[in-house]
């Protein structure tokens, strides 16, 4: 189990190691071909910032060799914003007084058709955590409804038990995204004071359960901004390395949800640690240099100008035209979004941006015939 690896590292030591990295150590990490976790630590350190250009050059080359000049396209389908958890950074948080909505069968199909019409064949189902209304049975039913429409179905919902994952995989689920939010146990608890989500260890074990269920792909990540992003990224990389060794038949992807200010009931909430654009590029390149085959995903949280430049730097998948409110595509476009979208461009516009850079948007990279 990952916890055996996790417990070997002390947060403060990791933070200290990263801060104390020397330029020589960074150069060493840049020159080697098979990079270790220690090399990754060096590459995400402040000392590596002056080496951003050579990192970007290498990142682009490695990504093209492995993935070609392609960007995979996906869109989220928000099924519900009901949630029994309190997450201090999320608009769907239980204590945020918003109108709650869970899509009916008919509405799910309307939304799915709208996403299809945008050109998508890969869809990501998203819910809050509310076991009464959007429990496993609801999700299972939703997958059954939309499966004939899509080549590839991903899901980003609360952590589930092993038999539940097995059931959903049999139903046609291919990928599960489950972010740890932060690997800092105490900080995690302050941001998740109530509900099932407050159990840090249960969440930490989730990728193990997914591996045991033999999931095709799982997505990892930390919410960049809750804690020291460098240490959180180190633990994410550690998690990735553990999982790849243990569940060698699964694919992995990393996301970079950088926290942005959100609208809560009566205030705008801002976060502790702020990550600059330069640092986010550094992190993306560092992941690529550390791991040549992990998929790297960039959402519409980021601005158009930033996203455009990242197409050639190591990213392998992107969303576009995303709606982060249930019913947002067709049923009820005006409801409150989970987080603010910074890139409002349509999939067709993003597609031409990708093409103009000599890349191909890939809409279908899976087949429903694969079980």
């Amino acid at each position, binding site marked *: 189990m990952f916890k055996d690896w996790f417990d070997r590292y002390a947060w403060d030591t990791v933070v200290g190691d990263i801060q104390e990295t020397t330029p020589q150590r960074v150069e060493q990490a840049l020159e080697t071909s098979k990079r270790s976790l220690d090399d990754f630590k060096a590459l995400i350190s402040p000392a590596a910032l002056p080496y951003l250009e050579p990192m970007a050059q290498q990142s682009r080359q490695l990504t093209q060799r492995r993935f*070609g*000049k392609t960007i995979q396209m996906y869109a989220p389908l928000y099924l519900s914003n009901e949630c029994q958890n309190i997450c201090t950074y999320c608009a769907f948080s239980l204590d945020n007084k918003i109108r709650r909505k869970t899509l009916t069968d008919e509405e799910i199909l309307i939304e799915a058709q709208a996403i299809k019409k945008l*050109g998508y064949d890969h869809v990501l189902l998203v819910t809050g955590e509310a076991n009464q209304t959007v429990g496993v049975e609801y999700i299972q039913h939703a997958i059954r409804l939309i499966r004939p429409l899509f080549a590839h179905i991903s899901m980003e919902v609360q952590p589930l038990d092993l038999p539940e994952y097995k059931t959903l995989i049999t139903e046609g689920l291919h990928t599960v995204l489950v972010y740890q939010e932060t690997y800092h146990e105490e900080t995690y608890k302050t941001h998740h004071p109530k509900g099932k989500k407050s159990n840090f260890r249960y969440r930490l074990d989730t990728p193990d359960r997914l591996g045991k269920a033999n999931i095709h792909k799982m997505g990892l990540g930390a919410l960049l901004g809750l804690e020291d992003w460098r240490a959180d990224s180190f633990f994410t990389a550690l998690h990735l390395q553990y999982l790849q060794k243990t569940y060698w038949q699964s694919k992995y992807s990393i996301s970079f949800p950088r926290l942005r200010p959100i609208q809560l009931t009566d205030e705008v909430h801002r976060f502790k640690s702020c990550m600059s654009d330069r640092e986010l590029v550094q992190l993306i390149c560092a992941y690529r240099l550390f791991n040549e085959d992990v998929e790297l995903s960039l959402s519409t949280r980021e601005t158009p100008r930033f996203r455009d430049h990242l197409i050639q730097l190591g990213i392998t998948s992107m969303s576009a035209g995303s709606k982060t409110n249930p019913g947002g595509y067709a049923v009820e476009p005006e409801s409150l979004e989970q987080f603010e979208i910074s890139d409002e461009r349509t999939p067709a516009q993003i597609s031409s941006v990708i093409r103009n850079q000599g890349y191909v948007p890939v809409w*279908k*990279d*899976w087949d429903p015939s*694969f079980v």
Partner: protein
Amino acid sequence: MNPSLTIADKTFTSRLFTGTGKFGSSSLMQEALHASGTELITVALKRVDATHTQEDDLLSHLPTAHLLPNTSGVRTAREAVFAAQMAREALETHWLKLEIHPDPRYLLPDPIETLKAAEELVKLGFVVLPYIHADPVLCKRLEEVGVAAVMPLGAPIGTNKGLRTLDFLEIIIEQSTVPVVVDAGLGAPSHAAAAMELGADAVLVNTAIAVSSDPVRMAQAFKRAVEAGRMAYEAQLAQPITWAQASSPLTAFLDELS
């Protein structure tokens, strides 16, 4: 020697097989494949959109050539058989590049599942070309179940490392009764030429062409290298002399004795 290559019911003049992945645009792919002179193009079932909803649908950009659907993405024999049947329907060919790589990192083929699937697919009437490790014994086992050719790897796929499995490829080529297509890892035209000089019947190249900064010229370079390598093989390469001419021969005394 017959200059053309026959696999199952088809005859090929070009011994350069190609792929469709990783190109920066469909038109560039089309041009490069045309320049390569290829007559057999592999295409991943998972990338094929049977409903043709996208404007740059992969299939509409392929030059006239035989299609070789592949099962990239499957992890077991059972999935491969199912995918093969889907491919046969979607692409209207019973040719199949059988790829089963449960390891998504290095995409190394699973020999056990591959043999199982090959046996079943041959029975179902497919022309099966399995992608495998350069394992001479596995090649013989696959021949026995009736595959149309074998496709051993030169190096891990996409690595451009060349003929890292050289010693085993030599054994496979020596022993095989079906065509041998060296697939995966060929990064330079010289790698392809070396495989052809060795006696491979064909090579399959994708990444090195698709990811090149000039895919069209790179495709031409591979075309020429494959032709040159084949020509050299047919003309019988001079063998390197591996022994030295000693200045004081050990057996000279025999002349003095006579």
